[in-house]
């Protein structure tokens, strides 16, 4: 069987010879020449929004998980390239144009669970096989913004509420917890500013 590595992504349309059977969601907007390798990408796409995913033109998405909770929304701009990454939106993750997201990168807009021990204990019960998810205690989520021309290196982690300014480079393996100014280079865990081209 000939497997096409990449196929055009069309809302609701199954890919040819896909190894994976997850439905390609209907509630998304996709631009021209945007390609994907498998519907595996949507294994955990639970968004019930009218538009839960908005993709521009000429985007490449490879071996990546775009996961959303029911109110989650992900937006990705033209010519962005995402390879073997995990992007999880409880609320909102906005990725600009010409963004590179490398192998092993994780981007999340939430901590998924409360920090407080008592609330966290309650959460383990609510999300268990015998619990009710509607009884989950509240937990924080803050939108993530990745502006145009940002490159995120292999195995880097971008946590909730972070805005990465236009043109910045996140070095491989960095863990980014705070906003990054434009045209910066960040490195380490926690990520530190190593160069700023704004002087």
């Amino acid at each position, binding site marked *: *069987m*000939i*497997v096409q*590595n*990449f196929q055009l992504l069309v809302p609701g349309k199954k890919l040819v*010879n896909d*190894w994976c059977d997850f439905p390609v969601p209907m509630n998304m907007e996709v631009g021209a*020449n945007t*390609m994907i*390798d498998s519907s595996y990408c949507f294994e955990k796409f639970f968004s019930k929004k009218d538009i839960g995913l908005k993709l521009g033109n*000429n*985007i*490449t998405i*490879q*071996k990546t998980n775009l996961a959303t909770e029911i109110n989650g929304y992900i937006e990705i701009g033209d*010519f*962005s*390239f995402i*390879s*073997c990454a995990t992007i999880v939106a409880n609320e909102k993750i906005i990725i600009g144009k*010409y963004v*590179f997201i490398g*192998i*092993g990168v994780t981007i999340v807009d939430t901590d998924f669970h409360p920090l407080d021990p008592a609330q966290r204990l309650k959460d383990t019960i609510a999300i268990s096989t015998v619990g009710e998810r509607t009884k989950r205690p509240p937990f924080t989520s803050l939108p993530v913004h990745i502006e145009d*021309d940002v*490159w995120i*290196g*292999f*195995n880097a982690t971008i946590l909730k509420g972070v805005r990465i300014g*236009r*043109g910045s*480079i996140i*070095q*491989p*393996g*960095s863990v980014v917890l705070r906003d990054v100014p434009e045209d910066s*280079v960040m*490195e*380490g*865990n926690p990520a530190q500013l190593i*160069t700023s081209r704004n002087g």
Partner: protein
Amino acid sequence: MDNPAAQNTYYDSNGNLAIESDWFPGSLPENVFLDNMSYPDSAFSFTGFHSGKKKSFFLGYASGNYGRSNFMGGENCEINIGKFVVLQGTNIISNKSVFIKDHCMFSWGSVITDSWLHIEASSAEARRKMLIQAANDKNRYLEFPHPKQVRIEENVWVGFKAVILPGVTLGRGCVIGSNSVIDKDVPPYAVVAGNPQKLIRFLEPNDTEVVKQEALKELIKTEYKIK
């Protein structure tokens, strides 16, 4: 046919080498070479491999790919993997050369790459050009300029989610801690960890030829032949 791998292989209707009972419906690129008793696991690991070189991927004797590794390779890449190597969900990215010697182990999520940005020389405009080129490529392959060979000597152990960056040589017997980012050479038998990397200590270089031969003799008893 000659069928040396530890998994059964066959030629599919298009004449491409495929792995029997592969869960992924694809075949191996024609320039992938499998030595005796090697375990390529699945064609899934090779979907991003686009080398135009004749012999561009070599998996040595009794070496295995387990747990969905990814081998991403550009037009001019060569990935060479020695004997008795364990690749457990490892990502290798090559546009030039990744050379791994015998008895190395790589844990899940580790990245070994001969390609990344040259920060000083990287303008947003140059990076845009790379992405436009990738979007126009039939394989959607993103080629990095100026790759630098990565060399990994014998008996190196790389922990989970560690990143080995372009131009690095990992010395014999060294250990790389999990989540480390390695951008400088690591001396033989060093234990290195952290991001940025820190030298923790040195190990005793006791992995002698005698030790190796003793262990291999045990193998012969179990009827496996050593090349």
